[in-house]
């Protein structure tokens, strides 16, 4: 058999924009086919893998002790992707879970994701290609076994990393030994779902031991021989421009190796973290600040009507000038990522090449930026991703890698550099503040005749280094801010959704689920209000506005399942009330019921019931874990979190004053029901953040009769 040309192989070649199955985006957009396709993709969450690595050999390493190491181009930030990928690969490769481990693929390995890890699409995007790669690798091993043994390939059976050759067996390690020129067959057919031993099962996380026994797996744990520590002086004021620096004190401090003045930053390199930090504090920098911003300025800028408008959905008539319109406004504040591991990196420049170890969601972008700054080939930059101590979108841009590389070059040694917590808070790429205006008209029999949602947000995807600029020119809108902005109730005859985009004086960006949290808070609080005005049960009211297609069926199913499982009741009982909300994000419908009471003027969330349909749950335990985490993180944003701007400074700058949910606040019960309304895996990590805000607010309404319309929810 001739060796096939790998580039012609059929798996993994899925370029272009593709088409989504169900069109959720209104007909308005259909006028521009390119817009339509991109927005459909954003809305449907249809995933595709945008990586390198067509050859199975780049993905699977077979060790001498007959174990398989999967080199993952997707990073592990807690979302459980490594485990799901290992399950998918192990099933097709015919190895046990104890025979497979997963590591991050370095950029030089040739198996680099060209885009990012994010958007809840790692498992869904790799579902087809990874299983095909694994199945192909298994067939490659059989072909080699045939060559080495003479045994007919079609009579071989495979199990537990061994090929059965009639009377004898060969391990994968024995087969792979000394093979340099693999014969690569076309991707074989995949097994049926019920033949899988691991996919669909609650397998313990593959990184569980490392994380329970404190192994040094994170970016901040990375080190290199002879390493020094760097620090970079950062301004505390918004919009501060560097003018000059007096470094004489720092130069003379113990442990300081060098202070460097670049065009765009001042850095200090010392022999310990503490020495570098103290020297940094001793550098006197003059900054130029043109305006002293306040929270009220930011709120004012973010009002609907202030920025550029883009109509997302336009169905039927515009009834916004009719009498009897119901109108409400909602807001959400600036939010911080507050991931536990600060951003950091170790960089080593050696002549014309650079090695970097760091927690990043964007290996390719980091490589590109470092190469550009040092004026070297991208191929000479090796980005080695580590486990991330939280991602949440914060590491979709990691330009501190560039600063570390510059510092390393300046001293000729590896340099490790990371953010202080204050710098994390002040130089976060925040979740933007939002403002929402909702209008509706009800028919006499309590059906929505007209619904309009205008929402305004600072940048999410616009200006993000990761997203090509042309996308926004094509779209005219921010693909991130609009997440959750589409109305998912398809049986409303007259509908408008409009996104407004504003430029804020500081960077805002991706925060787990992007616009979903705020948009759904507004939508679903308003739906609740409409149900009350219509005199309907909120669950029945929602069901009555869902269309009868495939997508509608899945949404109805999660709404019904959440209501049933929680035993949803519209009335408060014994000081406890239930709030209901639902969202559809990246193609995954999710409904939640929050059980809430008010004690000593505090909102207490006792229990959350969550029904979600992510399609096939590759690892149901980890899907549940993502729901539990997203619900609690969303609850934290709903009740506690906000950043303020005071006299030009972003504040607070430390946990505690930046209030977040702690153990004492977290719901004591979280009940997750998983449905499977499609025959492939869908998005998991972000969709369950959607409903929680409105579910809590709607419960508070049932307790107090007041509808709280601003996040974080504050009782008056």
């Amino acid at each position, binding site marked *: 058999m001739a060796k096939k040309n790998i580039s012609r192989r059929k798996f993994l070649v899925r370029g272009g924009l593709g088409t989504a199955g169900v069109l959720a985006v209104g007909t308005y957009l259909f006028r521009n086919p390119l817009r339509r396709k991109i927005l459909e993709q954003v809305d449907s969450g249809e995933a595709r893998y945008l990586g390198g690595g067509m050859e199975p050999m780049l993905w699977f390493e077979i060790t001498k002790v007959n174990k398989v190491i999967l080199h993952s181009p997707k990073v592990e*930030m*807690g*979302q*459980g992707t490594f485990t799901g990928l290992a399950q998918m690969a192990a099933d097709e490769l015919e190895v046990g879970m104890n025979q497979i481990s997963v590591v991050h693929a370095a950029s030089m390995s040739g198996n680099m994701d060209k885009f990012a890890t994010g958007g809840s699409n790692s498992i869904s995007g790799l579902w087809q290609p990874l299983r095909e790669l694994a199945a192909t690798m298994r067939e490659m091993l059989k072909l080699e076994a045939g060559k080495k043994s003479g045994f007919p390939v079609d009579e071989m059976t495979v199990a537990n990393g061994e090929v059965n050759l009639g009377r004898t067996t060969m391990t994968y390690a024995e087969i792979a030994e000394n093979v340099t020129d693999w014969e690569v067959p076309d991707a074989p057919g995949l097994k049926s779902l019920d033949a899988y031993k691991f996919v669909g099962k609650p397998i*313990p*996380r593959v*990184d*569980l*031991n*490392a*994380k*329970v*026994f*404190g*192994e*040094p*797996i*994170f970016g*901040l*744990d990375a080190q290199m021989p002879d390493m020094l520590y760097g620090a970079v002086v950062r301004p505390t004021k918004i919009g501060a421009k560097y003018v000059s620096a007096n470094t004489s004190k720092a130069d003379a401090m*113990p*442990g300081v190796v060098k202070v460097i003045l670049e065009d765009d930053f001042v850095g200090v390199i010392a022999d*310990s*973290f*503490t020495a570098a930090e103290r020297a940094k504090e001793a550098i006197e920098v003059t900054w130029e600040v043109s305006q002293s911003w306040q929270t009220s300025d930011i709120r004012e800028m973010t009002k609907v009507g202030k920025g550029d408008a883009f109509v997302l959905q336009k169905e039927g008539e515009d009834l916004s000038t009719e009498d009897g319109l119901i109108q409400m406004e909602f807001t959400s504040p600036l939010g911080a990522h*507050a*991931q*536990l*591991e*600060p951003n950091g990196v170790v960089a080593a420049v050696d002549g014309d090449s650079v090695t970097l170890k760091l927690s990043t969601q964007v290996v390719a972008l980091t490589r590109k930026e470092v190469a550009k700054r040092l004026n070297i080939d991208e191929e000479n930059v090796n980005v080695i991703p580590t*486990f*991330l*101590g*939280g*991602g*949440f979108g914060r590491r979709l841009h990691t330009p501190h890698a560039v600063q570390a590389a510059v510092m390393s070059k300046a001293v000729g040694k590896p340099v490790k550099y*990371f953010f202080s*917590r204050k710098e994390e808070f002040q130089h976060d790429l925040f979740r933007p503040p939002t403002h929402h205006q909702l209008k509706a008209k009800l028919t006499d029999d309590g059906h929505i005749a007209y619904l309009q949602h205008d929402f305004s947000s600072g940048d999410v995807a616009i200006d993000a280094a990761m997203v090509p600029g042309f996308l926004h020119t094509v779209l005219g809108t921010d693909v991130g801010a609009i997440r959750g902005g589409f109305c998912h109730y398809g049986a409303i005859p007259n509908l408008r959704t409009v996104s407004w985009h504003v430029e804020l004086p500081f960077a805002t960006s991706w925060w787990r689920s992007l616009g979903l949290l705020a948009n759904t808070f507004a939508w679903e609080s308003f739906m609740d209000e409409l149900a009350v005005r219509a005199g309907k049960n909120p669950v029945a009211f929602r069901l009555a506005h869902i269309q009868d297609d495939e997508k509608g069926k899945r949404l109805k199913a999660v709404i019904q399942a959440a209501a049933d499982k929680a035993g949803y009741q519209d009335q408060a009982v014994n000081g406890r009330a239930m709030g209901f909300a639902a969202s559809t994000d990246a193609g995954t419908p999710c409904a939640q019921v929050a059980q809430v009471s008010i004690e000593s003027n505090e909102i207490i969330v006792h229990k959350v019931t969550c029904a979600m349909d992510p399609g096939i749950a590759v690892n149901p*335990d980890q899907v549940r*874990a993502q729901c*539990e*985490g*997203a*619900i*609690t*993180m969303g609850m*934290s944003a709903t009740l506690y979190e906000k950043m303020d701007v005071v006299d030009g400074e972003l504040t607070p700058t*430390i*946990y*505690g004053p930046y209030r*977040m*949910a*702690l*153990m*004492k606040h*977290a*719901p*004591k*019960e*979280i009940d997750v029901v998983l449905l499977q309304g499609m025959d492939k895996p869908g998005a998991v990590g972000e969709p369950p953040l959607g409903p929680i805000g409105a579910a809590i607010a709607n419960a508070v309404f049932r307790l107090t009769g007041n509808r709280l319309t601003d996040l974080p929810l504050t009782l008056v």
Partner: protein
Amino acid sequence: MKISFVLNNEPTTVDIADGTTPLLWVIRDTLNLKGTKFGCGKAACGACTLHIDGVAIRSCSYPASFVEGKTIVTIEGLGTAKNPHPVQQAWLEEIVPQCGYCQPGFMMATAALLHQNPKPTDEDIDQNITNVCRCATYYRMRKAIHRAAELTPEKEATSDTQNS
């Protein structure tokens, strides 16, 4: 200056330039034990929690010189994969970690709590476990803390029987 203490059962001496350096950096950088994490440096998150003479301490805000003559246990000394501490065993059973970065601090805080209070109520847990987990794994952590409380006496009972 020279500082001597017992670290994970080993007598240890370090020689550092500045005794006010937070213990965290001596553990992480001088002694190269990376399981104790840096999260905030201001005693506000608990990622750096370890035990000094059996008490949970936030090592980012504890001057290294104060540890002279004391006994330190870090996550590396709490238990091993072969011989996990009951808290670690419970964490494994409940599959608690997500990103994992906060988890050593939580396990150290929990081990110290169980040492003082072998059967904590939900309220005890709420009041004593005040670390931050951004992945918000609190729901599983609570289950794991109760599970660890169950495991603790059982283990002691078994070893007692074996010894007798």
